[in-house]
């Protein structure tokens, strides 16, 4: 990577500070992006990464600090101005208009008009198709965005960011919603974007990605600049300790299939109209059952069908061996089944409500006295307990969730389900956007829950995570279960193999 030493600075930030009520998000931060490089920006949840990027995108105004683009000092006046300066950003949270089509979303604000006002939809779709062809993305320009899965929405965001003639491309956790295969596509896109005139700032919590894609790594901690390292010369351990300020010891894979408890939840012949075909499995008390598969394989749909969020065409759900009829999540909750959704913003948090309200949302009935009065001080106590336990970065439990960083919002959703005493917990991508240190803590918590006799289903698109945590691993492809492996039998390779067993050859394992 000769570029690292030779290149000149494309973007230079010095002494930047930004405060919110009760939070100093950034204090005197510096950052240098050189021509032609991919600079990774890392830090714990709430370290200030997104805030810094929003300053660059013209969404926030800094309290203090200097920005230089190609050596020239400037003030970024707003999102439009940032675009004009050649700064393009993929936000951590989606910024899509769900009622518009893919093409309309990508070119919003840049439509070509005839006669001043008229639009040509076909031309727009063609423009989008050209873009997708160029990028090698399989997206339909005329499909409404609301019908896309989270992962494909992410693809739209990426395509949109790349459609600008950008010099600086900022990606705030673009892979949080992506699977390994999509990550490969993304990295290919980044490599092609990179020229001697451009640079990429890449935010991620996935350490293994940093080595693959970045040239240098800048670390933030608690809103402060900690240091910058050349990727090729640095051990991941060092980066982690810079981030966290201590060593993280990742545990090994679970000893063996020790869980031999009763099946708590059994699924038989689960079929839905859209996707699932004859899915069946058991989860036992005390075990963590991992679900692996590619994007759209149907893992989320299995979970949603179990908790009654989607209609079941045929099949049976049994709790402790007894068939139950679950037609909505409230009934699932009555049978002791809880579901943490993969879509944090739409289906997870109440953005406009406080941290503690979110934490007790699922278990609120436990805080109610006979007459329906809620016990505010006990709620506060629970809120504080989980804020400490999961190290949620917030000035108080009364803070509105929308003011938390993405990863901390995710912790709040996890806390919501930890606070509720469920027998079966289905966690769909629970560590999305969560930093390395916190991930380990969450793994530990999940293991503790299992040890207490709960049955846990964990859907994850990160194979290492599944391997690290699950006692048994179910693999899905095209709405079918293609494998059910003990942890000891599983490797990244064979999981991937089962995940790509398409069409009829899939075998249903139990």
């Amino acid at each position: 990577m000769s570029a690292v030493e030779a290149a000149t600075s494309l973007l230079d930030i010095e002494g930047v500070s930004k405060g919110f009520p009760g939070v100093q998000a950034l204090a005197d931060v510096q950052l240098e992006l050189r021509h032609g490089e991919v600079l990774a920006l890392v830090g714990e949840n709430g370290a200030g990464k997104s805030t810094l990027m929003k300053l660059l995108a013209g969404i926030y105004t800094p309290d203090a600090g200097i920005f230089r683009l190609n050596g020239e000092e400037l003030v970024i006046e707003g999102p439009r101005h940032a675009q004009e300066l050649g700064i393009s950003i993929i936000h951590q949270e989606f910024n899509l208009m769900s009622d518009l089509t893919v093409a309309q979303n990508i070119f919003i604000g840049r439509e070509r008009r005839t006669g001043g006002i008229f639009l040509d939809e076909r031309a727009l779709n063609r423009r989008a198709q050209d873009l997708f062809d160029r990028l090698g993305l399989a997206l339909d320009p005329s499909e409404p965005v609301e019908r896309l899965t989270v992962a494909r929405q992410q693809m739209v965001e990426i395509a949109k960011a790349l459609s600008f003639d950008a010099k600086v491309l900022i990606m705030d956790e673009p892979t949080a919603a992506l699977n390994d295969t999509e990550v490969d596509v993304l990295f290919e896109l980044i490599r092609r974007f990179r020229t001697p005139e451009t640079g990429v700032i890449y935010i991620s919590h996935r350490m293994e990605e940093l080595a693959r894609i970045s040239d240098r790594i800048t670390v933030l901690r608690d809103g402060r600049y900690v240091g910058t390292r050349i990727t090729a010369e640095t051990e991941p351990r060092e980066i982690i300790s810079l981030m966290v300020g201590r060593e993280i010891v990742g545990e090994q894979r679970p000893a063996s299939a020790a869980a031999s408890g009763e099946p708590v939840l059994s699924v038989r012949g689960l079929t839905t109209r859209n996707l699932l075909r004859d899915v069946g499995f058991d989860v036992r008390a005390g075990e963590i059952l991992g679900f692996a598969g590619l994007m759209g394989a149907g893992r989320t749909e299995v979970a949603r069908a179990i908790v009654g969020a989607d209609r079941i065409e045929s099949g049976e759900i049994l709790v402790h061996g007894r068939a139950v009829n679950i037609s909505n999540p409230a009934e699932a909750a009555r049978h002791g089944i809880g579901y943490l959704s993969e879509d944090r913003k739409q289906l997870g948090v109440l953005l406009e409500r406080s941290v503690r309200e979110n934490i007790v949302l699922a278990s609120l009935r436990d805080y109610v006295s006979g007459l329906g009065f809620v016990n505010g001080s006990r709620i506060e106590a629970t809120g504080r307990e989980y804020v400490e336990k999961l190290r949620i970065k917030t000035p108080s439990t009364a803070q509105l969730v929308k003011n938390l960083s993405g990863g901390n919002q995710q912790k709040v959703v996890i806390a919501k389900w930890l606070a509720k005493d469920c027998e079966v917990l289905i966690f769909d991508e629970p560590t999305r956007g969560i930093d390395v240190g916190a991930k380990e803590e969450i793994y530990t918590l999940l293991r503790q829950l299992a040890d207490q006799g709960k049955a846990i289903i964990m859907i994850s698109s990160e194979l290492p995570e599944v391997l690290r945590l699950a006692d048994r691993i179910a693999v899905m492809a095209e709405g079918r279960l293609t494998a059910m492996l003990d942890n000891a039998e599983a490797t990244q390779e064979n999981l991937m193999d089962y995940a790509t067993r398409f069409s009829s050859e899939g075998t249903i394992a139990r």
Partner: protein
Amino acid sequence: MTPTTTQPPAPNPSTTAFAAVEAGAPRLAWLRGSLQQLLAFASLIVIVAAFSFASPHFFTTNNLVSILTAATVTGILALGTTFVIITGGIDLSIGTGMVLCGVMAGVFLTYLGWPIWAGVAATILFGGLIGLINGVNISVFGIPPFIATLGMMLISAGLSLVISGTKPIYFNDTPEFQSIMNLSIIPGVRFPLGVAIFIVMIVVAAVLLSKTIIGRYTFSIGSNEAATALSGVNVRRWKILIYTLAGLFVGLAGVLSASRLSSAQPTGGMGLELEAIAAVVIGGTSLQGGKGSIIGTVIGALIMAVLTNGLRIISVPQEWQSVAVGVVILVAVYLDMLRRRRS
């Protein structure tokens, strides 16, 4: 290499156009809870002060009681509607629903000759029934709140006429009925029982909204209905309950308005829903749902009542009165916005 500045610089106001969209927004939200009401309250104080200055007849005990009396019925409607609006819904049926409840009070007390307590209780429950039907239409049948309650608005208006035979029903057999609203409860001052009931209902509504499970779920549903449902909350049932609760308030308003007039008037009521919703929204409750407070609604209702009364007291010609009310509402809400943005 990490310059550890001891003190972060004091945050200064954001200046870009988007301050309002993003940077301002969280700040605003942070303060909203407490400040919003204080600011609306400030508007109310300013309006009261202005009228007191303009006319010696305004700030008198009797007139203030008159204002409260005028605010009672709309205010009680607005209290119930606050819950509905916080869920992100709307209730257009409260005005004519109230009229129908009044007519039912006449049916129970005069036509059926029930004892007064039974008639009053049945009327309030009848209001609850209207709300229940709204709730079922919305929650179970999936009809949008606007349409469901618009339908109920029309149905109630018609049924009032049908049931009463388009004639007022007088409470001839229960002359005590009128004391529910009118009985003077403070010797010396003409402080009517109805106003006291209003005050009690304010407290009840405030406690329900802020201290009980129904209030919690009201906010949760309004904030993110899908997420609330996925958290295992039976959203359908709670929404039905919330509309039913609003209906009970409508029933009570029906009792009070019939009591005030000593008769059940089968007409009118249209337009009252907008007045009540306006009170709620002026009080800072968002029609988007998820945000709101009872105290805000009360202040909103008082602002409306004070304006109407004050403009009459200072003898503003009638055609100018609605212009003045419109302008004052705009200015009051705008100043709120301004001060909230600044703070």
